[in-house]
Structures are given as structure tokens and as C-alpha cells.
């Protein structure tokens, strides 16, 4: 049994060297299926990646759909075998192949999974890092987690709207604890007044009302406005990035 599998891979590679890319791809796929049946997911991932790369080499290849599917399947196998760094790389190649095939939804999904697998790999690798590596990886993990939560690495821009709504409500609650100055009269806002102020501060949208935050509310308004300046353009960038592909 092992002889058969060994020679299948070697035969596939010999075919590849002779330029018989399609036959090589088929043999690598066969080997991958055998390994999948035997629950050897690490080896299945490697053979699927080889099959995908062999197909991509076919001269005059018009569609990269099959190539992308094979890379994606390889990435899923790598995920099962807990090799998240390899999974991330194969998802990236799947995304590139889908993009070449103008399958934008699949590109988006694989790009997201590539980034997410890498983020999980960073989490996994923290436990066995020395101090310098730990600092570097923690920095990368922090950035990746913010990108994941805020806009799904650019592929889920609508998350920013949700984030914005939560932020507006949370800051509105803070504002109700402090007071404002309207004209020369200080007053404690109710929730709807605070929510309105919070909305206009975050989005910089809406008719201007002369309300001056007092005390801690000044500090909260600056923080909220600052977050708004960065997240709203991020939403527009994500939206443009996504829709310009279509």
C-alpha cells in the first residue's frame, strides 16, 4: 500500500517535470484522496496544493476555478491537521486563483480565512515565544484582532456600522452621567439628548446645536470624535474596495 502511494507522488512529479501538468494534477489528487480516507490530513493538504499548482501550470488554462478549489480544499485539510500557518498560505493562493477567475465572493471568503488562520496561528505561537518574539507577535496579533473585529480584514465593512452604533450608545450612556452647557445654562441630558449629541460627535453629521460638554464629557467627546474620524473613512474604504471588484 505504501509503495503505491510513494510511487504515485513520484510519478506525479516526474510527469510534472515532463510538462504533463494535467496528468500530474490528477495523480496528486488521487494521492490526496487516499490520504483523506486515511485521516492523514497533513499529507492530503500537501498533495492538494501540489495538484492545484500543477493545474495552474497548464498552458492556455482559461479558468482557475478548479485550481482555487484544490488550494481551498488543501487549506481545509491543513486546518484539520492544525497547521494554521500552512492553511493561511493555501487560503491566500486560493484567493488569488479565485480573483483571477473573477469569482469575487469566493476571493473575499478565502482572503478572510487566510487572515483569520494566520491570526489563530499567532495565538497558537504565543505560548512558545521568547520575549522578543512575544512582543512582536503580540503587536501583530493586536493589529490583526482589531482588523478582524472592526471590519473583517476589509471584507466585512458593515461591521463598522454595528461598531459605530454600539459606540454611540455606550458614549451616550457616559454623557448622561455628566452635564452640558446650553447657552449659559448647565443641564444634565436625558438619554435621547445624549444619544443625539453622541451621534453627531461620532459621525460629524446633523444640524449643529450649541451644546458644550462639561467636565468628563469634554474628554469623552474628544475620544468619540477621534474614533469617528478613523472608522468612518475605514467603512467607506471597505465598501469601495468590495464594490469596485464587481
Amino acid at each position, binding site marked *: 500500500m505504501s509503495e503505491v502511494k*510513494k510511487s504515485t507522488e513520484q510519478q506525479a*512529479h516526474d510527469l510534472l517535470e515532463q510538462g504533463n501538468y494535467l496528468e500530474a494534477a490528477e495523480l496528486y489528487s488521487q494521492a490526496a484522496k487516499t490520504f483523506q480516507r486515511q485521516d492523514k490530513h*497533513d499529507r492530503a493538504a500537501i498533495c492538494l496544493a*501540489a495538484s492545484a499548482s500543477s493545474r495552474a501550470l497548464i498552458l492556455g488554462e482559461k479558468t482557475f476555478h478548479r485550481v482555487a478549489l484544490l488550494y481551498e480544499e488543501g487549506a481545509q485539510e491543513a486546518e484539520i491537521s492544525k497547521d494554521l500557518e*500552512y492553511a493561511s498560505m493555501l487560503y491566500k493562493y486560493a484567493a488569488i486563483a479565485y480573483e483571477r477567475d473573477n469569482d469575487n465572493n469566493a476571493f473575499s471568503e478565502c482572503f478572510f480565512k487566510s487572515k483569520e488562520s494566520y491570526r489563530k496561528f499567532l495565538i497558537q505561537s504565543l505560548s*512558545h515565544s521568547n520575549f522578543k518574539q512575544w512582543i512582536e507577535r503580540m503587536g501583530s496579533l493586536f493589529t490583526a484582532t482589531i482588523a478582524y473585529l472592526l471590519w473583517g480584514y476589509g471584507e466585512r465593512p458593515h461591521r463598522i456600522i454595528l461598531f459605530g452604533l454600539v459606540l454611540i450608545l455606550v458614549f451616550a450612556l457616559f454623557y448622561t452621567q455628566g452635564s452640558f452647557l446650553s447657552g449659559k445654562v448647565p443641564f444634565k441630558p436625558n438619554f435621547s439628548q445624549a444619544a443625539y449629541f453622541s451621534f453627531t460627535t461620532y459621525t460629524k453629521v446633523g444640524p449643529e446645536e450649541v451644546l458644550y460638554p462639561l467636565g468628563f464629557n469634554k474628554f469623552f467627546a474628544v475620544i468619540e470624535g477621534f474614533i469617528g474620524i478613523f472608522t468612518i473613512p475605514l467603512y467607506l474604504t471597505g465598501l469601495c474596495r468590495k464594490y469596485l471588484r464587481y
Partner: protein
Amino acid sequence: MNIKLEKINDITLVSLIGELNMDNTNRVREAFKKILQEKKVKVLIDFHKVPFVDSSGIALLLEIVQNFAKANGRMCLCHVNKKIISVFEITKVHKMFNIFESHEDALRSF
């Protein structure tokens, strides 16, 4: 598959002789486990006499790279022939290994 170990300063040079395939991955895995147990975390693998690596060999190399990274060590490969380089490239693992043309280049990188 024969495995020869040599020491160059604090680096362990592992020369593999023969194909790295599923018939011998367990032996190689054990050899590297032993190296790690002895706290030797800098390893250079010489592929000069390795004619071919199959998917079990690649899976093993990925495992070894990860194990050395976990131990805050480093693993490099040298004298890898064109056929194996092409296997690494076709399976997209080439960026996960530190590959050098000669011993000297690899040793300088540690």
C-alpha cells in the same frame, strides 16, 4: 535512510542520506526528537544526498520547523537539489523553510 550527526560550534549538522519518504519518517522524527531533548536548538540539515522528498517528508519537515520554533531554536536546509526545490515550490511550502545553497551560507545565518 542514513542519518549522520556532526557538531559545528553550537550547531548540529544533520546529513540525511536517501529518500525522505513514509518508510523512514519515523526514524528521522525520532532523531530530531533526541536532538531537541539534548537542548540542541540550532540545526542545519544537509540534503546533498537526498534525491526526493514525498508528502510525508514535507509534513515531517514542517513539524520539525514548528518544534524548533517552539523551543526558540532554528532549522535550516542546505544543498537541496532542484527536484526537491521544485517539490517545495509546487506544494507552496518553500517560504516556510530557510534554504541555503551551501554550508557556509547556512552557518553564517545562525
